[in-house]
């Protein structure tokens, strides 16, 4: 799997939406004219989808798919080259005891760790995603955010996970948010761009729907829920709203955009709920690492434990899996 | 050679836990015949302060639970009390000097009183709330909401039935409570707090301070983060009651005044023990296309 084979998005979007993004007021009119999201109804649907029961062979293939969708992440102040090397090795070979276990989709690190990760991963097919644009707060001047992006790209990042300016968004400066995403997209070159909303700060589903459309029109390849640094991070209903947005966007433009929930997804059970949601809300076309990712760290080990249990019939324990 | 029993320590109940008083003080509690039973914690003003904090912290969660959920929790408290009926009968006998048959009646009443209040959780709104037919194209409704953190001075003599009858009406509607138990008869209140701790009642919803109302109540009455106060516990001490009411006026607390004498707790309580601690919210919304 490689993200460079994914269908490109963005080049045509700018032209299609030129009218809408001509001014702040026309962008606002468009975004505020999108259908509202009723909180109670949306959460009820997410809860119902969460009762789907996936068993036996279906569960096995779901677990393998989930593993292949993991962006194995370390974003700590205390990250070292050693830590990143170990993480990258794990992403390539998650289960040392089982060669049949698929590799993760990518590792996700800070820009100054990209080169190290790239060294280990080489052409294994596991991508390097870098957070950029003054992650996680996004509070820096635009040129600094762009420099941050270029630095990561030059170091070899295949994917860039940027953060939007939530202050600008919440004060209604939509066009500014839009233009920043466009600029970052340009700085990405051929790297794929994920746009992080920090849904915990946006707070309402209406805002999440608006941010989704804004990011898609601006050329993001993926829309992403959270940095993982703010609670709440990813939730099922928020992801549902984003899946509805990408579904509607394809309906309107023919283009597919990916979705990445990040933070707070710890168990295989959670991951499978997300896959069910992708399946029933956006559709099976999105059930692929090119179009759906999990931003996670501890999730991977739980997936491996479940995978092992399904193969051997025994519950496993942490001694049998690497910590990184 | 008869067996030496392991005697219980009687501590405060704050935030779901059982701390000793931060002052380190305790006082000797005797039974109805004057015989020493135990040293109970003597609550200080700092304990009261901590209890108010715990109650405030618990208020958001407790008041936003569904009424059905609160009803089920209070009913569960009754279930656990029923299960411990012999223990409560002994506690009441010891504190109040009642004969066995009377003590059993008191305990039965207390459990039934709790069940009665549990059933009010999802009905009080239907009895005191309503839509209002205003003279204009507006939807208009008035409904009760809990006032917040309530201080309750528990009755001096009725150590269980009176206790339950002053706590349950406050919390069933979503308030949280800081209780000062009867000074002379605190032990059933401590046993009751143990039941609360094991009945799915979230920590901080009910906090029970053993000690002297005369010492602790003024601090609660003056506390700016307490929304209401029930002065039943100082029934008969008109001067103290009046001073507490004056202190409470600083932040316009809702006050339930002390009666002249302690009421007969076996009588039908009516609904004012609940409504005193409820606000009424009226909402308007236009009707039109």
């Amino acid at each position, binding site marked *: 799997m490689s993200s460079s084979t994914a269908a490109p998005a963005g080049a045509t979007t700018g032209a299609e939406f030129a009218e809408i993004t001509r001014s702040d007021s026309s962008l606002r009119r468009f975004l505020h004219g999108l259908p509202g999201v009723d909180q109670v109804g949306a959460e009820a649907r997410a809860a119902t989808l969460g009762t789907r029961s996936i068993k036996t062979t279906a569960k096995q293939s779901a677990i393998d798919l989930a593993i292949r969708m993991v962006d194995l992440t370390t974003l700590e102040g205390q990250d070292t080259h050693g830590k990143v090397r170990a993480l990258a090795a794990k992403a390539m070979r998650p289960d040392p005891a089982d060669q049949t276990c698929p590799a993760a989709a990518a590792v996700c690190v800070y820009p100054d760790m990209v080169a190290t990760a790239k060294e280990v991963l080489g052409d294994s097919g596991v991508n390097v995603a870098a957070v950029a644009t003054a992650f996680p707060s996004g509070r820096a001047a635009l040129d600094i955010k762009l420099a941050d992006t270029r630095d990561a790209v030059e170091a070899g990042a295949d994917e860039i996970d940027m953060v939007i300016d939530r202050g600008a968004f919440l004060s209604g400066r939509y066009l500014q948010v839009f233009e920043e995403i466009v600029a970052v997209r340009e700085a990405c070159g051929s790297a794929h761009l994920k746009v992080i909303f920090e849904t915990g700060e946006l707070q309402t589903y209406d805002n999440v729907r608006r941010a989704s459309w804004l990011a898609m029109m601006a050329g993001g390849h993926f829309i992403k829920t959270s940095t993982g640094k703010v609670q709440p991070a990813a939730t099922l209903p928020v992801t549902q709203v984003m899946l509805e947005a990408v579904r509607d966007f394809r309906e309107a433009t023919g283009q597919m955009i990916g979705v990445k929930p990040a933070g707070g997804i710890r168990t295989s059970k959670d991951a499978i709920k997300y896959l069910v949601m992708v399946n029933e809300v956006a559709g099976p076309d999105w059930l692929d690492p090119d179009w759906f990712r999990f931003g996670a760290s501890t999730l991977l080990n739980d997936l491996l434990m479940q995978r092992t249990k399904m193969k051997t019939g025994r519950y496993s324990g942490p001694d049998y899996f690497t910590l990184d | 050679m008869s067996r030496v029993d392991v005697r219980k320590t009687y501590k405060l109940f704050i935030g779901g836990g059982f701390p000793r008083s931060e002052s380190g003080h305790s006082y000797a509690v005797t039974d109805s015949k004057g015989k020493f039973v135990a040293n109970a914690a003597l609550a200080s003003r700092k304990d009261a302060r901590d209890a108010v904090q715990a109650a405030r912290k618990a208020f958001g969660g407790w008041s936003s639970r569904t009424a059905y959920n609160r009803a089920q929790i209070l009913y569960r408290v009754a279930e656990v009390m029923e299960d411990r009926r012999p223990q409560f009968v002994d506690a009441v006998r010891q504190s109040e000097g009642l004969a066995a048959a009377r003590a059993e009646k008191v305990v039965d009443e207390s459990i039934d009183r709790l069940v*009665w209040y549990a059933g009010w959780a999802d009905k009080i709104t239907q*009895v005191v709330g309503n839509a209002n037919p205003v003279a204009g194209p507006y939807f208009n409704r008035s409904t009760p909401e809990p006032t917040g953190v309530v201080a309750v001075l528990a009755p001096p003599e009725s150590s269980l039935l009176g206790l339950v009858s002053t706590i349950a009406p406050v919390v069933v509607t979503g308030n949280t409570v800081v209780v000062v138990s009867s000074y002379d008869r605190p032990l059933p209140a401590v046993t009751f707090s143990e039941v609360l701790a094991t009945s799915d009642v979230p920590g901080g919803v009910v906090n029970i301070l053993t000690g002297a109302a005369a010492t602790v109540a003024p601090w609660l009455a003056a506390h700016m983060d307490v929304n209401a106060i029930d002065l039943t516990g100082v029934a008969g001490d008109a001067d103290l009651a009046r001073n507490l009411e004056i202190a409470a006026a600083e932040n316009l607390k809702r006050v339930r005044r002390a009666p002249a004498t302690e009421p007969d707790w076996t009588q039908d309580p009516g609904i004012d023990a609940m409504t005193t601690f409820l606000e009424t919210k009226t909402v308007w919304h236009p009707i039109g296309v």
Partner: protein
Amino acid sequence: MKLEYAPAPESRSIVDIKPSYGLFIGGEFVDGHGKAFKTISPATEEVLSEVADADEADVDAAVKAARRAYTRTWSKMPGRERAKYLYRIARIIQERSRELAVLESLDNGKPIKESRDVDVPIVAAHFFYYAGWADKLEYAGYGTQPLGVAGQVIPWNFPLLMLAWKIAPALACGNTVVLKPAETTPLTALLFAEICQQADLPPGVVNIVTGAGETGRALVAHEDVDKVAFTGSTDVGRAIAKVVAGSDKKVTLELGGKAANIVFDDAPIDQAVEGIVNGIFFNQGHVCCAGSRLLVQESIAEELLGRLKRRMSTLRVGDPLDKNTDVGAINSAEQLARIRELSDIGEAEGAGRWSPECELPQHGFWFPPTLFTGVSQAHRIAREEIFGPVLSVLTFRTPAEAIEKANNTPFGLSAGVWTDKGSLILHMANHLRAGVVWANTFNKFDPTSPFGGYKESGYGREGGRHGLEAYLR
């Protein structure tokens, strides 16, 4: 990649269905003297059990047992003691909830997901709620005296829930009851009888007489029944109203419906689609308050229909005991025939028929979720209650037109309104002649919330403080 959901069956082993059941009279199971009949699983057509049929003498014995219990025990018992029996029953229902849910799905055909997550929890809540009224009747505003013996006849669509709606308020107010469950769904009522025994409910307070139409007729007409409560078809309701005419019997009726689910162009559209789907496909559409007429504002009709069809394609029709099933079996061969007949009429009258592709099982009674477009008020499928997973789609232009179309029916049970505008919701609610209006939601039930119809959907309310009125004087 395609995500398959392997079969995820809920185990049947938790239920212990006896080969046959008697009538529950005076606290015991006794033989019936009518012709015993079989109850089957509508999903597989297998026979589940043989059930007694109560003839007129049996009904009389049941009413006598109820009267005895009323006079000697129940009407004399203080409310706080009656309350505690009802609380016990609520708790036992919670304890045996999985068993009840599985049994309900087996006997009725509804998905386990619904019986487990909706029916049984609300049943427990209903008993819990009304338990709390038993000792507070003086605050309800309706008088504090019970009526006596209530004769109650319930339908097959929500067997245990309808039982709870009838028995809980009746008992809370001090009445005793004789209840007849529907002939195709007797089993959870019989399990409920066991629960009454476990709760040590005094004998005769609750009596269950199984049987068909004749049993119901005998019960409703019995001289010594003070109160009649019926939920079922408008035709039978009409007949009952005639039977009790001139007598002292109080009566409440909860009958059919043909609810309009009205979607405005500013509706939260994804939630509206969910509400439409829930409104007509929940419980296979066997719901008196089902949103069986979609009234969609013309400007968004095409878009809405596209989303609706796409959403309907994810509905899973199949084994009611499979936890992933969304739409279960039709309750009986008769009901299936009626649904088919009306659907064929819909096509014949020129409406456009559409169903998603569904693989339906070989045995059992099945009907795919279906919608008809281009429907007008004059079509039979827009006027007659189909009581199945069939949605008729009509359009409107203005709020006034929506109101006119919604009200243009002899029924008046419920309605749905979807819009982001608060004042419009309240305006529509004021003008819709329906006992229940759901705004930006649908099919929501709660023990505190009164439910019942206008016009030919019946009279009286069940649930809430208002639900006490029918059982007091």
